[in-house]
């Protein structure tokens, strides 16, 4: 079985779905179910607590940063209104450019490659898939010196360098998951559409791409978040940039001074950078695992 068994049944459906319906007539709330629920909700809350602390700290009045209490006396949006004076707007735009650019590159490059490998047998196909599978496990950290020296030679603007690096390192995931989706869509559907008068490209855009939409959305969001969150390459390649043109992760790191840390702005920035991606990720959570594990578990 491939990662995606049929286009009408995307991988997320296998995650759980109908079994989770609450108050289902077949299953009354037994003491055991009640205990399980309480434990599970407790753990779920535990996983969210650090991010709640992040929000609370961002809303703390600056004087209260030195107060030893879990909840401040009152809250203020001061950090969120003044963070823009630290150049945070520029950082936000920079990260949007990098993550957006990397996503666009990944989609334009991975869709043709994944589609062609799914539909055709050609010489080098196995080698290509092996290359994708192996490089999916490569991470920039272990080859940072190589990346830094290569891109110093290229002498590109840092934004472009970071778009390319993030695109390159996230391409494998996109190719793999899209390949599974395209493989699951019967070629006959395209052929039928071609008989009706639309060319191969027409069949691709009107039939195949819409059917593969869940896979494309997953690849899109995953790439965007990975590039948005990336730290070590951003830290290395944006060195020497004006601080308001560095990506978000680097900017947030910059609130750590040599002698003091601007926790208020740091966490206000962290909230702005984190909450949207957690919500975005919730859209694709069910489909990510099969892509990451190269389809070896569904």
């Amino acid at each position: 079985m491939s990662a995606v068994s049929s286009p009408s049944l995307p991988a997320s459906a296998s995650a759980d779905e109908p079994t989770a319906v609450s108050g289902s007539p077949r299953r009354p709330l037994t003491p055991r179910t009640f205990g399980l629920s309480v434990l599970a909700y407790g753990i779920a809350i535990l996983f969210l607590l650090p991010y709640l602390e992040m929000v609370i700290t961002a809303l703390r009045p600056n004087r209260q940063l030195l107060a030893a209490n879990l909840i401040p006396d009152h809250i203020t949006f001061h950090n969120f209104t003044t963070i823009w004076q630290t150049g945070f707007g520029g950082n936000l735009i920079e990260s949007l450019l990098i993550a957006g650019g990397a996503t666009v590159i990944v989609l334009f490059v991975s869709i043709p490659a994944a589609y062609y490998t799914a539909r055709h047998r050609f010489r080098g196909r196995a080698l290509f898939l092996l290359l994708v599978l192996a490089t999916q496990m490569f991470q920039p950290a272990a080859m940072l010196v190589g990346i830094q020296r290569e891109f110093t030679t290229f002498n590109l603007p840092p934004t472009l360098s970071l778009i390319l690096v993030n695109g390159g390192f996230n391409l494998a995931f996109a190719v793999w998951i899209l390949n599974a989706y395209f493989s699951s869509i019967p070629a006959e559907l395209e052929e039928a559409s071609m008989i009706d008068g639309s060319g191969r490209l027409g069949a691709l855009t009107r039939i195949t791409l819409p059917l593969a939409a869940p896979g494309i959305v997953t690849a899109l969001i995953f790439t965007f978040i990975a590039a948005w969150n990336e730290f070590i390459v951003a830290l290395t390649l944006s060195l020497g940039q004006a601080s308001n043109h560095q990506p978000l992760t680097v900017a947030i790191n910059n609130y750590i001074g040599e002698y003091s840390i601007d926790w208020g702005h740091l966490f206000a920035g962290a909230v702005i950078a984190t909450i949207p991606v957690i919500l975005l990720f919730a859209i694709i959570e069910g489909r990510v695992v099969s892509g990451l594990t190269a389809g070896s578990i569904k």
Partner: protein
Amino acid sequence: MATTDPPIRLRRPLAARVATSLRPALWVGPAVALIVVVVLWPVIVLVHSSLQNIAADGYVVGGAGGRNFSTLWHEPALKGVVLRTVIWVVAVVGVTLLLSLALAQLFHQRFPLRRLARTALIAPWAASVMMTALIFRWALDPNVGAVNIILHALGLMHRLGSNQSDWLGRPGWALVWMMVVAIFVSLPFTTYALLSGLQTIPGEVYEAARVDGAGRWHCYRTITLPLLRPAILVATTINVINVFNSFPIIWEMTRGGPGYETSTTTTFMYILKQSFIGEAAAMSVVNFALVIVVVLFFLKVTRWKEQVT
């Protein structure tokens, strides 16, 4: 007619053949080019750099032969760093796996609003690891950190702002807390992978065992664990890569210090890179060689041959 036929037949297949051989390059070529330039070429540059004498500003002074490697080998901190890296990877990946097995079992049960509870687990996976690390650094602040306030309230901490509450100031405890963060951010993916694995086990298998009078724990050990093997192997391999390469947690919580006392080979490489690029490249080559070993294992456990053919 007989004279015009052959050339046409010859010309067509030739043109078609050229077009056919070029078509894969057209569709797959850009992907190969991007991977080669961004992912593979740096490896070559890396190995090349490790054999050169490079000044701190990046200027190449000349060849270095194996000197970068011998300098690295004689680095007094190296032994501790390598040992710490092994402990870091083994402990984080091991504890993550054990906790995830339990979590997957729990979240596999049916209960109301299960989907919502499961979704809450993804937060540490979706958020940038550096942000999570910074939250913990703040929560461990000796004077006002939430962890210390809670411990103090429970009577487990004598005084805030004391040596006892300065967790990140003591290398041993700093390492423990950084492992906690590494485990915390590794749990969601691992749990989800194991949940996917659990989904592939048909319920009838358990019913048959129960008819035979097998207990719950016995069922788990003899049925669930063996059938989860593929999921466990793949998730563990991916975790080893992630944890080994993990930079943000250590960088944001201790910067690898004091000295190199909380550094792994990844952060050690980064610190070296700031002044000794050739030696950092040598460290990177070693790191990369280890990554290759894990990648080969990954290809094996994902049964790549079946997947690509």
